[in-house]
């Protein structure tokens, strides 16, 4: 089970590929007017092996994003010269579909809806943890690289058929509750990527609030007991301090 500390260590020792084999380097643009926050993000992204640039106001950010060389944009909602939503709106008008993640101090439901409507692809209220931001950014980047809507998802010997709603591991049929099925489906769609508890709550349950107790953990452990119990090779991993990842450990 790799933690980000492990990943960082691995990178420091040049063992990045070993820590997370299917991680691909992303090109990121951070548009954030708070220089400290921007520097912190750029540094943190570089540390885990990505390429990151920073812009300190909306106009600069727009100009840089217009090049379209980036995989993901990380856009603060409130920016000098040009509002974050307007930056994204302008890009979309010009046909530039680079995925954008909005950072905002306004964490309310309707603000998030506004952000997504303006062309944002994800929304993260401040203060956020870097692991959460990283996990979401990687999901967006992969979506950009194009994910075909496969009908059968496979991780190792685990197989999920989205049409017949059947799950099997090896030769064994696994029976799942509808919600467990959706949970596993989401995890397998993002196989090899860290998926945070908030992401699961948002995408599997469609809730955008904090349920106080970590109810997700219990759902995960139920799912784990169904798909991993009795198999020598565990597939569903806990990433300490971040979330979960489904991954074929044998690769």
């Amino acid at each position: 089970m790799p933690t980000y500390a492990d990943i960082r260590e691995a990178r420091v020792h040049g063992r990045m590929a070993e820590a997370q084999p299917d991680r691909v380097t992303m090109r990121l643009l951070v548009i954030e007017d708070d220089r400290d926050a921007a520097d912190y993000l750029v540094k943190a992204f570089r540390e885990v092996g990505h390429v990151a640039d920073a812009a300190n106001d909306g106009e600069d950010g727009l100009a840089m994003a217009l090049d379209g060389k980036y995989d993901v944009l990380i856009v603060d909602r409130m920016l000098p010269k040009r509002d974050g939503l307007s930056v994204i709106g302008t890009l979309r008008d010009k046909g530039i579909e680079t995925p954008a993640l909005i950072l905002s101090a306004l964490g309310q439901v309707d603000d998030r809806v506004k952000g997504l409507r303006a062309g944002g692809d994800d929304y993260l209220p401040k203060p956020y943890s870097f692991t959460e931001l990283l996990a979401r950014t990687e999901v967006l980047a992969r979506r950009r690289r194009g994910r075909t809507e496969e009908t059968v998802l496979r991780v190792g010997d685990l197989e999920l058929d989205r049409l017949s709603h059947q799950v099997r591991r090896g030769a064994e049929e696994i029976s799942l509750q509808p919600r467990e099925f959706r949970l596993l489906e989401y995890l397998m769609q993002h196989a090899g990527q860290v998926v945070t508890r908030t992401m699961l709550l948002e995408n599997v349950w469609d809730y955008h609030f904090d349920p106080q107790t970590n109810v997700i953990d219990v759902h995960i452990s139920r799912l784990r007991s169904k798909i991993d119990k009795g198999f020598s090779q565990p597939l569903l991993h806990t990433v300490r301090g971040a979330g979960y990842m489904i991954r074929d450990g044998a690769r």
Partner: protein
Amino acid sequence: MTALGKLFRTTTFKLTLVYLTVFALFAAFLLGYFALNTRRLITEQITDTVNAEITGLSEQYRLGGIRRLVVVVDNRARRPGSSLYLVTTFNGQALAGNVTALAPGILDNPGWTETVYHRIDEGETSEHAAHEALVRVFQLPGGFRLLVGRDLDERERLYRIVLSAGRWSVAIVVVLGLLGGFLVTRRVLRRVDAMTETTRTIMTGDLSGRLPVAGTGDELDRLAGNLNAMLERIEALMHGLKEVSDNIAHDLKTPLTRLRNRSEEALRTAKSEAEYRAALESTIEESEGLIRTFNALLMIARAESGQARDGMSEFDASEIANDVGELYEPLAEEKGIALKVEAQTPTKVRGNRELVSQALANLVDNAIKYAQPAGTGANGAIPEIVVRAFNEDDRIMLTVADSGPGIPAADRSRAVERFVRLEQSRCQPGSGLGLSLASAVARLHGGELSLQDNNPGLKSVIALPRGGPVQSAG
């Protein structure tokens, strides 16, 4: 500003002046109309009488000649209150009649004239003023002229009486109107001044002040009553705000202090990297708790201020009950609690699905937190939490019933008040704001959260009006 000047500038006084002018003009018009008509009527009567007499006298002349006419005229002229008569020859010599001193040339113009005259019996002395009369001169055959007239004194006297009555009444209207206006204005001004004075005291910070209510139930009283109700609400809000800031201070300062203490302790005592790491991790954990509390507080504040009314739509409460039940069921099971959902369909309600879900989730979360561990329930049975959704009259109810220790009856109503937290809940993990948030969400929807006895345990009830909040609520 002088007191009088202030008085004249008031709305009441201006209104009084307008009404006064209207009434005075009306009175003058009415009396003038009356006077003119009376005068016209009297004149008509006079001409009728005179015409009739002339007809009669010319008939006498036709029958008996000038001699008979003179006799008749003399006769009539001597009666008291008689008309005026004069019969002359063609060259103006008087033959009979009771008038003299006519203006010269009158007899030459047959027809109607208004003229000054003296009666013969009065003589032409100065103590008897000249009278006015309306006369008609009639040319008789044979060159004789007949003059018949009536005195106009009566008419003029009546006219004068009406005119002077008119002048007096207008004067009285003006005086009384001004006086009344002044008094009413002064009374209103006094009450408004008292209100202004009180308002000023209140504005300087004494929110306990209230406007005086005279008890007459007039519009000023209603205004004062409404302003007082508003002050009541403001005072309650201010009080709430103070309580809120105290609670926020407590909820945020306690973990901040803990955070700081741990960091300081780590700086002081940590020796290895592992110890530093552990301290940093606990710092992050603590800050996550802080963020959670802060978010909950913001959410409550938003719900309380009614800002979240935008995102309302129709949804089925039973779905929420099922979803939330499904979300928490594994957690309950892990703790040895049976979580059941009994949802009636349809239970359609208008509101914010996300917020209602969050409120219900908080209640379930609370119930799980406070439920007795397995085996310690009554008779060693498995403790149970039941989530229900059902219709009741024009409301939909979402209830969460547990068999935990409950909340003492005395604390129950206090527990759902804005931001109030019972002492024991402050020690529990989590933001501890679950009840406050659920209550704020219920109020946002025009409903309420109530806590009831579940014998044993606690039953939390969210009641929501089916049609969503009435806009005036809150």
